[in-house]
């Protein structure tokens, strides 16, 4: 009797497994990429504050209206050409002669992973959602484009959308390349709307609905994220059909796994590990100049960092050559401006900070801290580089009587503390996505910015930034932004540290690395 029932049951079970596992088995090893990174994204929603892990998810599960053309850099990596904007989901665009509006002509036949065709309704719903949620999208529109009302967004027809701004802006096109401004498949998202969740935030924080090359098939925070290829993607389906991203917090474990061949890509290795990886024949290290600034922000509202002399003193105490050698293995460059070196209008002509303990002591005495002071420095758990720098800086600052308590916190707790303004000093490794000095300055230095975590405030700097945001005179903008950089370097809201560049270690079989300003990998470009 058991035998009689057992065989059909087993057959049915096997059949069920084949059916259920069909799509997974359908992909060969060469179509699946195993990636290990320090953490899974905190949220998949574009409206969540940007983080490194979040940016990478956004790059792969959202598609934007415009993109930069790509070019090959001297190291052979594909990078964005900031001088050439091309159509993304918008096949073309027009900017009004007065630089006060942009009209997007959407591509026809673009489909989401759910099979829904993109129309102007999707774009408008995305705008409406972002505007009403008053988070990332709203900030870009109000802070960068100075839009005051949702009337600025107009649906012209099924495939045309127009955005008008009150003042002329040279960022009108550049902004839409931004990683945070993807278009949502509104038909799919609306299926998840509830009375208390009119913008499907619950669904979009753990799932995806867009016109991107990938969609999320599994999201287990703290464990793994699985991306599956969108079969209808308008640029053609991805070569890699499945991306399995696994959280592996310790960088040395990621390197060991890559070396053992258990993963294809190891993200965020330390410079020493990168140096080791370069010696392993089965590993390929991709490197680009990058746009990061790794800095130590001081809360300018909090004593003693409310005094310019104290902030300058700490900058004079940093042993930059030693850090470059021992922490970065001479692969990083000292940051000498709030703006990245690769962006137009960058200048470092006024950077005065060389290691000078006597000068630092003199400045501290001038500020009324002759005997130094005691403070706290926060850094993220699982960031060996920051811990190493923190210990070196603690020793360096102690030479002028500055006692630093090191506080290691989970990333989310640290963000919470510096956002609330309760952490005196903290590391930030950040970049501005839009390659424009006014954008960068507005992001990090404008006193109105939500990410000006140092709370730096200078009326002249604010005025110059605000002027540049609505100016169309490129030469004047450049001069103004250089002036902003000189003032900021002098007033030192941060301890300027390093640009670490961007490196990615992959199996030698992996090809197609490309670099984008958010420092997030676009799996569509990869193959193996």
């Amino acid at each position, binding site marked *: 009797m058991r035998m009689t029932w057992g065989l059909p049951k087993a057959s049915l079970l096997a059949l069920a497994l084949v059916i259920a596992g069909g799509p997974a088995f359908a992909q060969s090893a060469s179509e699946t990429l195993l990636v290990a990174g320090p953490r899974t994204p905190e949220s998949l929603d574009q409206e969540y504050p940007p983080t490194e892990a979040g940016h990478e998810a956004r790059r792969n599960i959202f598609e934007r209206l415009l993109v930069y053309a790509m070019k090959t850099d001297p190291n052979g990596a594909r990078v964005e050409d900031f001088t050439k904007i091309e159509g993304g989901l918008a096949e073309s665009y027009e900017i009004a002669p007065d630089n006060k509006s942009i009209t997007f002509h959407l591509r026809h036949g673009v489909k989401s992973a759910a099979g829904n065709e993109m129309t102007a309704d999707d774009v408008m719903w995305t705008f409406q959602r972002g505007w009403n949620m008053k988070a990332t999208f709203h900030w870009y529109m109000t802070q960068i484009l100075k839009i005051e009302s949702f009337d600025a967004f107009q649906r012209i027809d099924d495939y045309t959308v127009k955005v008008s701004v009150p003042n002329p802006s040279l960022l009108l096109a550049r902004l839409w390349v931004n990683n945070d401004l993807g278009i949502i498949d509104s038909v799919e998202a609306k299926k998840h709307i509830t009375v208390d969740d009119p913008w499907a935030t619950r669904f979009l924080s753990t799932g995806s609905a867009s016109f991107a090359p990938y969609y999320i098939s599994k999201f287990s925070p703290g464990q793994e994220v699985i991306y599956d290829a969108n079969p209808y993607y308008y640029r053609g389906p991805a070569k890699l059909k499945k991306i399995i991203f696994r959280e592996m917090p*310790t*960088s*040395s474990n990621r*390197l*060991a796994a890559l*070396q053992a061949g258990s993963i294809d890509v190891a993200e965020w290795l*330390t410079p*020493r*590990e990168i140096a*080791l990886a370069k010696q392993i024949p089965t590993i390929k290290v991709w490197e680009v100049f990058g746009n990061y600034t790794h800095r130590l922000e001081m809360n300018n509202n909090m004593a003693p960092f409310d005094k310019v002399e104290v902030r300058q003193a700490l900058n004079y105490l940093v*042993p930059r050559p*030693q*850090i470059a*050698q*021992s*922490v970065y293995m001479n692969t990083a460059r000292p940051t000498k401006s709030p703006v990245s070196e690769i962006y137009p209008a960058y200048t470092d002509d006024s950077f005065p900070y060389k290691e000078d303990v006597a000068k630092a002591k003199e400045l501290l005495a001038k500020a009324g801290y002759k005997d130094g002071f005691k403070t706290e420095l926060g850094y993220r*758990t699982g960031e*060996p580089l920051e*811990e*190493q720098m*923190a*210990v*070196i800086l*603690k*020793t*360096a600052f*102690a030479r002028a009587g500055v006692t630093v*308590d*090191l*506080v*290691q916190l989970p990333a989310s707790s640290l963000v919470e503390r510096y956002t609330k303004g309760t952490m005196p000093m903290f590391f930030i490794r950040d970049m501005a996505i839009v390659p424009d000095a006014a954008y960068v300055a507005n992001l990090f230095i404008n006193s109105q910015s939500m990410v000006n975590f140092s709370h730096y405030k200078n009326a002249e700097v604010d005025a110059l930034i605000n002027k540049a945001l609505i100016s169309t005179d490129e030469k004047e903008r450049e001069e103004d932004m250089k002036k902003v950089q000189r003032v900021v370097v002098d007033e030192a809201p941060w301890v300027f540290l390093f640009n670490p560049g961007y490196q990615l270690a992959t199996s030698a079989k992996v090809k197609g690395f490309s670099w984008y300003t958010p420092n997030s990998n676009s799996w569509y470009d990869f193959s193996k």
Partner: protein
Amino acid sequence: MSRIPHSLRSPAAVIGFALLFLQILLILFAPLLSPYSPVEADALASLQPPSAAHWFGTDITGMDVFSRVIYATRINLLISVVSVAVAFLIGVPLGLFIGYYKGIVSSLVMRLFDFIQAFPIFVLGMALVAVMGQEIWNVAIVLAILFTPVFARLIRAEVLSLRERPFVAAARCSGASDLHIMFGHLLLNALLPAMVQVSISIGMAILLTAGLSFIGAGVRMPVPEWGLMVSSGAQQMILGVWWVSLFPGLAIVFSVLCFALLGDVIRDLLDPTKTRRAVSTSTDIIPGIGGPL
């Protein structure tokens, strides 16, 4: 020679006391024995292998591992001894009371201990340190909280068996108060397992302190602490850098071994069945009673 009890002359005792003596030396003379500051980074001396200048090499920030291992003896033993002492001082009287007085309070205290001990020890430790902050004293308090039920349960178990013995009835009949019975008669008879547990717990506390620091829930960098040093060095093992983890790891091994051996020695010393005058019951060593009834 013959006056020294046999248990103190055993190899285990000699090794245990030698290691204890060494640790006391390191604690007292750390500034004299350490060639470098244990907390000052020297970026240009990063990850140097053991040499004449740095006997145990340097860590990633250039701190001297030898100096840090020596200074860490202070921190690790301070945390461990203080936490166990606090746990002993709280746990023993508490165990005495809940063993002597049966009732709802006793049951509630036992359920509280169940609650504390039901948690995986590291999860509870991490949670408590997360709430209280990563300070040396907080780690000691966390360990004291974890160890208090251990002592209390041991004493309670002993008291439960002793409280029905004739000598307790005799003391009660002679008009002794409850407090006198508990502290004058029961405590001394119930103390043996707790005394042995002290040494074992110090060893466990060293391991737990190191373990908490290893997972990032113990003391903060750059405090010299063995577990933190092992954790910091573990990152560099893949680079072929073995010395940063190895030496503090060995320090943990020897320190825990020391207290485990001493625990055995104390048990042998205090265990009446291992002394020549031991007889069939333990009632004859009850002070103030004057022998079997």
